[in-house]
């Protein structure tokens, strides 16, 4: 099966070509969507086969490189079209093809009747191909091609509703920010290539060869520069500070796209890349610290912003940024396994959440459409009480929310708790650890709060749309709910493969599985870290308990604010009319609450959103653009159209050049 690894990206490519060329003629949605889904599902089957075979091999033999064809060979530069299958890429292809298949299936229902149905599936398949190239690439160049490819497809899919100006702008923003990141990636690649080549005559960009030569790399120095450049690339693709503002805007695309590209797969490419080159990153302690700090900062930053959003997809978008921050935090503290584990569980529950929100939007859209209402179907203030109308969506959504909030027994708990524990107990960052842990823990609390706020506002309480619209609220068709159920199932049980040792009920398969991949990195880490303080099990138990408590606090706040308070007055009014006035007092308390806790928090959130996002980040981007445009205008004016000026420029060039050389 391993020999056939090239089939994995080939299937979606065929699907993309087929739909791109013939889709317009076929017009039959079932055929178009069916073929696209079938293709990615075939890739999934091949991936399963490869995973099985890999499991059958002894741990140390689980690396396989398949050269499909020799690509660029010249002098000492060599890059093949090669695929690398190892435990890490095996997990990634399973996630990409598995979640990808479900989202393709879901899209058939969701995109029903959209103009350019074939275009959508063609892009989606193309995206899957690029993403598979990215994760399977045996050298940096193949990876880079995938890297560019996913950026391109993301651009095409964000701008899918090109009639909307905001969609076009969002697409451009995403593409430009991704290009900044790509630039960092290329510079990092060049730096590493040049340093290894000129100093040790190892001209290579092949991952296995770099791994073999990684012992030649120094600690810090040039590796810090190279890894920082790579990290810039990762921040662009994975929406970390400061290049994250494109991701919330990217919600202009269709919801399944948000689920696949902007939650489950593409945005995790940065994490994957760091994992793939862990043996290089770990040699640059300063970079590791930067990654950890940026990750933690992004986690809390995006979480606070998430509390101030009312658009259901924007909440999820900021949540994604925040969760990606957790993954980077894990990478930065050397807990590569935990980071990848969170990547996987996050793919399950966040895809489920996005698809669930898509289901809600779908239903809302239809309901509002029937009632000829022009309310925003994505605004949570228009929702409420949907649990009765959409039970399956509600249950899967709730399960995923519990998972992301970090309640024991659900997948998110295992991975997030592992990250927090590693942030606290890792031997890399000394005194910084407590801050990293604290930031992460507070971010987790915020996460629980805004996610349950989302659930309560959407599914509980009274329905806030008109009664007429309400009658048209229906559960989505099977083609939409099946993927939801599968993902919901995974959101609950997907975490059991990586259960912490402490709980001890199941062995931590996940860690064993990835051990050979990160062994080299761990080896390097041993040589410079201070003797890691040994923490007792009691402490670990304690912190685990604390993180559960934190999550519960977040949920409780959300409950009080969005469920309990509105319902308490209602009950009081019903049973004790005399106490009506007191209920109003209750409201005052609530407002005090608002004033003391929620408003500052919301204010901070919207300040950070409006102030930082819009002013600083966009300001920098716009500022650079303005300067370049000004320069462009200046240079343009030099091009005056007069032959004299052109001749003058030439003569001036000659005079300067000659003067420089003969008078030097």
């Amino acid at each position, binding site marked *: 099966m391993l020999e056939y690894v090239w089939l994995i990206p080939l299937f979606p490519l065929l699907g993309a070509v087929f739909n791109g060329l013939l889709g317009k003629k076929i017009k039959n949605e079932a055929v178009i969507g069916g073929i696209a889904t079938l293709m990615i599902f075939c890739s999934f089957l091949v991936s399963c086969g490869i995973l099985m075979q890999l499991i059958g091999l002894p741990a140390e033999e689980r690396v396989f490189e398949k050269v499909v064809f020799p690509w660029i060979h010249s002098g000492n530069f060599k890059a093949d079209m090669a695929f690398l299958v190892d435990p890490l890429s095996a997990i990634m292809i399973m996630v990409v093809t598995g979640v990808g298949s479900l989202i393709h299936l879901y899209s058939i229902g969701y995109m029903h009747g959209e103009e350019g149905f074939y275009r959508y599936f063609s892009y989606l398949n193309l995206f899957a191909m690029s993403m598979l190239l990215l994760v399977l690439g045996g050298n940096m160049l193949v990876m880079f091609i995938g890297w560019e490819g996913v950026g391109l497809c993301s651009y095409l899919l964000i701008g899918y509703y090109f009639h909307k100006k905001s969609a076009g702008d969002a697409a451009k923003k995403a593409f430009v920010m991704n290009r900044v990141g790509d630039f960092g990636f290329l510079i990092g690649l060049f730096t590493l290539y040049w340093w290894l080549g000129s100093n040790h005559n190892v001209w290579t960009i092949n991952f296995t060869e770099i791994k073999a030569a990684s012992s030649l790399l120094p600690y810090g120095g040039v590796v810090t520069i190279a890894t920082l450049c790579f990290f810039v690339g990762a921040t662009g693709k994975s929406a970390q500070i400061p290049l994250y503002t494109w991701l919330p805007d990217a919600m202009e695309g269709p919801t399944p796209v948000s689920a696949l590209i902007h939650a489950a797969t593409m945005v995790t490419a940065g994490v994957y890349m760091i994992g793939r080159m862990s043996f290089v990153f770990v040699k640059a302690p300063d970079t590791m610290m930067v990654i950890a700090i940026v990750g933690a900062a992004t986690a809390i930053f995006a979480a606070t912003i998430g509390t101030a959003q009312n658009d259901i997809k924007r909440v999820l978008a900021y949540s994604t940024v925040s969760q990606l921050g957790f993954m980077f935090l894990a990478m930065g503290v050397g807990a590569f396994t935990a980071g990848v584990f969170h990547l996987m569980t996050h793919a399950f529950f966040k895809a489920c959440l996005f698809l669930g929100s898509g289901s809600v939007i779908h239903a809302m859209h239809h309901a509002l459409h029937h009632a000829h209402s022009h309310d925003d179907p994505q605004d949570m203030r228009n929702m409420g009480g949907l649990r009765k109308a959409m039970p399956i969506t509600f249950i899967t959504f709730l399960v995923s929310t519990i998972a992301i909030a970090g309640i024991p027994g659900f997948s998110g708990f295992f991975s997030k708790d592992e990250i927090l524990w590693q942030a606290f107990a890792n031997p890399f960052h000394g005194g910084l650890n407590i801050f990293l842990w604290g930031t992460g823990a507070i971010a987790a609390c915020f996460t629980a709060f805004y996610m349950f706020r989302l659930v309560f506002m959407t599914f509980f309480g009274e329905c806030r749309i008109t009664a007429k619209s309400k009658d048209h609220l229906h559960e989505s068709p099977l083609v939409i709910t099946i993927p939801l159920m599968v993902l919901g199932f995974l959101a609950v049980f997907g975490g059991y493969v990586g259960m912490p040792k402490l709980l001890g009920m199941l062995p931590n398969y996940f860690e064993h599985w990835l051990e050979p991949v990160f062994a080299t990195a761990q080896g390097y880490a041993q040589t410079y870290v201070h003797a890691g303080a040994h923490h007792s099990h009691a402490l670990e138990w304690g912190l685990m308990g604390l993180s559960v408590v934190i999550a519960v606090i977040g949920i409780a706040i959300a409950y009080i604010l969005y469920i309990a308070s509105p319902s308490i007055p209602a009950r009081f009014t019903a049973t004790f009319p005399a106490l009506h006035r007191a209920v109003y007092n209750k409201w005052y308390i609530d407002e005090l609450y608002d004033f003391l806790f929620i408003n500052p928090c919301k204010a901070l959130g919207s300040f950070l959103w409006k102030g930082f996002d819009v002013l600083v980040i966009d300001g920098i981007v716009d500022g650079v653009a303005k300067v370049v445009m000004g320069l462009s205008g200046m240079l343009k004016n030099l091009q005056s159209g*007069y032959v*004299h*000026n052109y001749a*003058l420029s030439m*003569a001036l060039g*000659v*005079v300067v050049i000659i*003067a420089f050389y*003969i008078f030097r």
Partner: protein
Amino acid sequence: METFFFAIVALVAIVSGMLVVKCRNPINSALSLIVTFFCLATFYVMLEAPFMAAIQVIVYAGAIMVLIVFVIMLLNLRTETGSRYTHAVTVGTIIGVLTLIEIVYFFSGGRSGLTGATGGLNTETIERVGHTELIGRSMFTDFLLPFEITSLLLLVAIVGAVVLAKKKI
């Protein structure tokens, strides 16, 4: 004596060169240019290249300049009115003077500049064989290919001139 003669011719060449640039009327410029060409022909004779002097007069002063004067007449060009963009004149002159300074600076280094491999061409050979034959010989042996390319070049020029300027094609 020869140097004195050289100085006079050089002076005439430079002054008439300046007149090419200075004259407002294109015809006057063209006539000054012809004077410069004759001065250069004189130099060629002094440099023992009589054949080059001859074709300098025939081709340059004769053919090319006649063509130019003819076009000037055809287009009935008048004196230039004052330049609309005087900065071009100032800056252009400054740049030209800078070029001049650079050139004089590095040529005034004396003979040291000239280091190239020498050949067998000297007064004796030229007088014995004849300059025209020497040129002809090397053109048909050593420089046969460039000579043939010239024919293509002239072909392109003829076709081009016809395409661009003929009334009806």
